[in-house]
């Protein structure tokens, strides 16, 4: 049973921040609530006050410019999945959203809510890490920026202090000859990831050398993580199947997955070994076409 709480529906970001400042630790932000309401029903979270930002349309937008993409925190998964500009210029984001939960959940759930929930098996975090995204967080004292790869701290814990609210996600425009790919392994199509891998590769002009690479693992550690050592194996080199295999092996040493009803630790490590080469190769193929 959900416990009683007092409900506030601020009309502006300013109002929302004032409420968060006032109630601090006793309050919880709800947006789509697709993850939070499940926790509340299980009695795991019982806030006294809820600041409901679902109606904050000022934070619901997708803007694309020369320097990249800006997505407001209350933008729904479905809006990202269906956005023509995202499909065209950041296809990996639309593909990721298309496989996130069910249509009903994507219609109401938001990208900001998903990231702030901090579930290591969530889809957006690893893709956003691979795309080198930055988050903007607003508080009573102003705003600050934080890279996505530093935002998740632990299981269901993110770098938001009392009174702070995630407002925007920024994704830099990809350099020329860049491609990205994401795959989540799961048994039921609309389920959370057993383990997932996102990769972004930038190739040099003409020579096919890997100029830059970012690899992120989901559901393979307490948070979505960047596999930096695996990236080092590939960076500055001409990528071969042997190197990809090595990157997969190295990525598995960076992962620290758990065993649960979905998969054992060993199984998840094997998924990392398989998916890192596969997704990096796919990202490379896309980079060649870009």
């Amino acid at each position, binding site marked *: 049973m*959900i416990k009683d709480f007092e409900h506030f*529906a601020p009309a502006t970001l300013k109002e929302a921040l004032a409420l968060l400042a006032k109630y601090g630790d006793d309050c919880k932000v709800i947006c789509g609530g697709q993850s939070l309401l499940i926790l509340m029903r299980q009695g795991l979270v019982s806030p006294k006050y809820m600041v409901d930002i679902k109606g904050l349309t000022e934070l619901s937008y997708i803007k694309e410019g020369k320097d990249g993409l800006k997505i407001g925190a209350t933008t729904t998964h479905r809006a990202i999945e269906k956005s023509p500009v995202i499909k065209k210029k950041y296809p990996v984001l639309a593909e990721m959203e298309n496989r996130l939960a069910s*249509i*009903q959940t994507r219609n*109401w759930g938001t990208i900001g809510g998903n990231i702030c929930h901090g579930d290591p098996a969530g889809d957006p975090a690893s893709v956003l890490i691979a795309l080198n995204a930055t988050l903007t967080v607003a508080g009573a004292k102003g705003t600050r920026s934080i890279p996505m790869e530093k935002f998740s701290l632990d299981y269901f814990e993110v770098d938001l202090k009392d009174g702070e609210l995630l407002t925007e996600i920024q994704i830099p425009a990809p350099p020329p000859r860049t491609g990205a790919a994401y795959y989540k392994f799961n048994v039921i199509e609309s389920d959370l990831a057993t383990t997932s891998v996102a990769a972004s590769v930038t190739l040099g002009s003409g020579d096919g050398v890997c100029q830059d690479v970012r690899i992120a693992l989901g559901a393979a550690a307490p948070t979505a993580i960047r596999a930096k050592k695996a990236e080092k194996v590939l960076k500055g080199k001409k990528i071969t199947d042997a190197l990809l295999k090595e990157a997969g092996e190295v990525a598995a040493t960076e992962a620290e997955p758990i065993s649960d009803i979905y998969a054992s630790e060993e199984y998840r490590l094997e998924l990392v070994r398989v998916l890192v080469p596969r997704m990096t190769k796919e990202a490379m193929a896309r980079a060649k076409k870009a």
Partner: protein
Amino acid sequence: MKKQLKFKVNGQPYEIFVEPKKLLVEVIRDLIGLTGTKRGCNSSSCGACTVMLNGMSVKSCSVLALQANGTEVVTVEGLAKGNELSPLQKSFLDHGSFQCGFCTPGMLMSSTALLAENPKPTKLEIKEGIDGNICRCTGYNSIIRAVTAVVKGEYKEAK
């Protein structure tokens, strides 16, 4: 403290006072009395509670009722026009697209939302359209056949 919820359900305006913790499915079933919408898993997994909110399918067990303030909700009871069933409802009947019937309201709402957005879905798109709804009886094939028949124009909308 109860708060006012002002919204429309199947075209009928409602102004009711609800506890903030009430979920949309609870208000629809327990306060408004429309029990066509089913409460299944209670954890947004099964889709039995699917309704349309401003034309989008949502799982009403996972939406705070107060978040529906100012919106228009359509439940399975809102699909028929008077005594005339909607094309999907007729097709579900003709194709035997249910056994126990518990998933049917949700399946109908997801299929209705799908066809509103994409009137000519492929078989794969139909499958994706009902992917958030679980049926433990039919094996889905009769449901997909029913939607396909509507897509082919075999059932006409009531005037």
